[in-house]
């Protein structure tokens, strides 16, 4: 194992929207740690694990194992990796944190983080190409915000968890819903096979082309549900069942770099398998094929990188079918965080001396089609080799004349977050 950088973190989240109402509290304090090895070091074991405990808000506790793998060089050109490992299967998926190829850590959906696929990776690196093959009997879906059900109701303890409708309208009469999540056997979820590969041609310094294919379970779980009206309690008894559905992905990237300038296009074709996942009579999601395309360009000037990119999703709708389905309400199953957006970002790294520096990154994402904007910023000031201050913000704005919120991110228009923390390396 290479050297593990261990970091203790103390940070505070504040939800600063005037209409924040997801939880009673709007400020949360965390104590956490981050363990990470340096991939450049030729060590067999690599990891990137973080976690935190929220004071007085157990639903906000998290642990994020984004990478944890064993690396074995088979030859000078071949590597074997076993475990959870992030790969650039698709530039689009990486840059937009779309969770299409690789799962996401969505503790905070406004700042989702990639997680690696888990399995066996065989990598051949030759000057003309790189080939990666992947296979796995295991599946770990997106890691979403935690939730808790008490007496049939979702507890309001996690601002990032969007609970499904709390009431059902029957003949014009609103009726309270009691939820019951039918948790499948863990083995039924986890023991899912997947395979795929990537061929990379060219060099990242000039022309680069990649072609990827993957057949695997979607990183998002399909949610089917069914309900009955309890005449005894006069409440809607709704059962929700998560289920794994498969899709095949075909992706291709083409990029060209000339000195400090880079531009390219990335596209993915997703073909979901609409197999029968739920009992007859349930309200279930159905998926359509999608073509996702992203164009991007970046310019690096001294310590600053300017980037601009555009994403568009054609197809890929999630439509619920069943007695509870409604075109006026978002499906419970989420597939993409949004469907079209443009984003500009600036990243700056200043080094003042050894162990001291300031890294800032600001991005602005706007989706005219879905009527929302997201501004994200993060900064880390390294005061010494041991101490750092850091902060984050995510501000979302939802256009007021939008009647039905279709984007997952736009749901959090009242979750504008401002975070400040301090870390200590030990």
């Amino acid at each position, binding site marked *: 194992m290479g050297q593990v950088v261990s970091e203790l973190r103390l940070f505070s989240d504040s939800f600063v929207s005037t209409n924040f109402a997801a939880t009673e509290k709007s400020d949360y304090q965390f104590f956490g740690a981050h363990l990470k090895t340096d991939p450049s070091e030729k060590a067999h074991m690599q990891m990137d694990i973080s976690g935190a405990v929220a004071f007085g808000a157990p639903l906000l506790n998290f642990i994020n194992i984004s990478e944890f793998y064993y690396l074995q060089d088979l030859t000078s050109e071949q590597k074997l990796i076993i475990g959870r490992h992030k790969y650039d299967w698709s530039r689009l998926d990486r840059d937009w944190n779309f969770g299409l190829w690789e799962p996401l850590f969505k503790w905070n959906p406004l700042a989702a983080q990639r997680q690696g696929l888990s399995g066996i990776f065989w990598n051949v690196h030759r000057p003309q190409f790189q080939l990666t093959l992947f296979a796995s009997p295991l599946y770990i879906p997106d890691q979403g915000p935690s939730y808790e059900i008490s007496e049939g109701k979702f507890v309001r303890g996690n601002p990032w968890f969007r609970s499904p409708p709390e009431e059902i309208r029957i003949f014009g009469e609103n009726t309270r819903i009691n939820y019951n999540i039918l948790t499948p056997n863990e083995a039924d979820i986890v023991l899912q096979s997947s395979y795929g590969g990537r061929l990379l041609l060219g060099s990242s310094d000039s022309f680069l082309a990649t072609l990827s294919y993957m057949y695997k379970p979607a990183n998002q779980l399909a949610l089917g549900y069914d309900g009955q*009206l309890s*005449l*005894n309690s006069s409440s809607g008894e709704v059962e929700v069942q998560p289920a794994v559905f498969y899709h095949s992905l075909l992706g291709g990237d083409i990029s060209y770099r000339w000195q400090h300038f880079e531009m390219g296009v990335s596209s993915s074709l997703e073909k979901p398998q609409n197999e029968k996942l739920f009992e007859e009579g349930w309200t279930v999601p159905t998926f359509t094929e999608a073509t996702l395309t992203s164009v991007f360009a970046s310019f690096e000037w001294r310590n600053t990188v300017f980037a601009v990119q555009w994403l568009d999703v054609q197809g890929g709708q999630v439509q619920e079918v069943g007695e509870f389905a409604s075109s006026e309400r978002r499906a419970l199953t989420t597939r993409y965080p949004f469907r079209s957006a443009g984003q500009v970002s600036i990243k700056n790294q200043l080094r003042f001396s050894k162990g001291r520096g300031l890294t800032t990154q600001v991005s602005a994402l706007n989706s005219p089609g879905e009527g929302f904007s997201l501004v994200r910023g993060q900064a880390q000031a390294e005061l010494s080799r041991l101490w750092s201050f850091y902060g984050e913000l995510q501000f979302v704005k939802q256009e007021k004349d939008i009647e039905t919120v279709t984007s997952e991110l736009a749901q959090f228009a009242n979750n504008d977050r401002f975070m400040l923390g301090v870390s200590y390396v030990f």
Partner: protein
Amino acid sequence: MYSRIALFLTVSLSLFLGGCSDFLEGKKEEKEVLEISDEKFSCLNNLPEDIRLFSEGRGQTNRIESSVQCLQNALTYFQRRTVGAENDFYTIPELRLFFGKYFLKENNVSPELAQELMKLKSALLGGSPNFLTKAEISRLVYLLGVFKEEVIKINPHVGVLTFHEQHKGISSEKIAAAQGVLEAALIRFLKETEMSKSNYSFQDSKKLFSTLADFISGNKPFNLYLRASHYVPIIESVKQILFGVKADLRSQEDWNISVRTVMKLHQVALRFYYSPNGFNFKSSEDMQDLFKIGDLVIDLLLSSPLMVNKGEIAFSDIDSLIKALKSDGVVNLPLTTDTILESYRVLLAKFLDPDRPEDISHLYVLKRTHLLTLQRELDVMRARQEFFEQSLRNSKNFLEFGENFKKINLERWLRLRDGISVSQKILLRKTWEDTLMLLSSSPRVMFTHTNRFIVGQSLDKTEVSWRGVTQINLMMTLARFLMIGYSNGNSLNLHHSYITELGLTSWYSDFNSLGRELKAFDERSGNAGPRSFKEANFFTFRGSGDQQMSYAESFEFISLLFSGGLGSTAGIQKTLSLEQCEVNERDIFDYRMFNEKCFNESFVRNFASYFNNLPLMVRYFTALSTEDKNSFLSELVLAARISPADGNKIEIADIRTMVMLLHYIESVFAVYDRDGDQVLNRQEVTQAGQRFIGFLREVVPGVSEGNLYDGFYYMVFEGEMPSTWDVISSKVQRWFKVHKTADRRNILKVILALKSKLNSPIESGK
């Protein structure tokens, strides 16, 4: 260096945050709500309209199918989408909670109604009345399928089955076809449901209806219920008559019998309602309808569960039905309830009870024998009608009709009919003989097509009509009943039976209330039995003037009464009213009285039309001079008047008597004016005198036979009561064969002279 960086960061952050105020403001969240689309239930909105169309006979098969399908879907959805405290069933409070919250927010089902509905559920689907299981809902969905199939079959017949005006006059075959479909549907439904195993009672359904009405009406009056609730006592009474107070239906077969009983009742109502001419008896079919309805009613009662099981129906139950019908106005007779109750008891006791009890106070039940007697008499009347219609076929006049009747081969007729018992054959043979006897009078009993009794000599070639012969049948039937009830014989020997004056007095007494309320009896005359007895003996074709009223006398007297007392009088009353002869004063029957002058003028003017059934009387009257007409009329009024003779007013009772007197006079002429010269000579008067001599013997006791005849001659020829000298004078004239004749006016004068005597009872033994 650091200060520049800090300044840069501060400025950047301030600008950034300042520009983010839009972001921070956000938008107030709206709760998402799951929604069950009620689109699939929108079809239920069409249900009331479809029910209405169906009930009006305008239902469409596709709409019925879709409506029932909609109901089935709604039930299935309810079954699938709801759950009680227990998975498999719903309790009453749960169901009430559901309907109260989602459908009946302002007026929830009351606990009582819920309980009654569950009782019905239990009867139809089985199971406990305390909860509804999901399996029972499945069963209900299935039953709705059965219901749909049957309703589609019934649909084309709904108009017929529900008494729609547009089907008036529909054939009995179509009624039977419609009923067949309905009965098959009900039997199938009974078979498919658990009704036959349940103990669901009429009281339960009554309570359900009542609580349902409370629920529907709330605080507002519910017209349908208000209307329907009137019928509840009637339905309950009918139910008690047919099924008893507590119907004991224990098996599928019991229920099937009950359905058939109800269907018979329904058939009676349908046949009655759709009778082509509203029982105006214009054709043979009308009579067949009447007989058929009679058969149905008798069969309904005979085969009713109560009669089958107990052999009797309590008068108290029949009383209840009559009271209910009367109070609801269904029976719109000008009779009080007490009179109806009293009269039907007498009818049963006198006409239908073989024992003919004098004291009917111990008669409490309608027995099987009563119904069998009624059926027997109906069969007699039907057979006679058939004979008459057969005889009528090739008859142009009453002479041919009579001859054709004689030619009927009764034995062949009996052989061609199946299922006639020996006793029925005997009865029919007797009846045929009786009929032959009643038809064989001279002059004949004949009726016009307007039901007027034709009185006159040598009128046998008067045109015969179906209505005329049917009226004869009706009169014979009434006479037969009178004889059965009040003669000394029975149904098999009426030919040789007779009614005494006491018997007829008893008849008047038994039906006194009925007669008075029907305005047929005049209380000022007391019991009209003795007078009627005399009139029947004196003025019928076969009147004998003796102490007995034979079958023939009864038949002819009743014919005279109906034709004259009812038919002609009603016609005159109507004409007088049209001619505005009415005055404000009302008579004892509450009829308007008539101005006497106006009456006189009208009577003279319309005499020919009033008495078109007395053609020879019309010829006589028309030939009179004006002065004689007025004299004749004033004597007629004087003989008939029961009201005070104040010279100004005439009342119905007077007119009725006048009409009867004219019929009597004409009857005497029809019988005794043998030479047809329109006057009675001494020989004819002598023959007539044989009829009246017994009466005269009582009026003038202690006079010899010869003197009585001489007195009678005097009375007839001179028109006044004789003195001793007059008798001697008459005797002398007889010796010297002085030709004397008496016309109709003379007979009228005789009646006038004997007016007070006619009302006195004949002393027995004289």
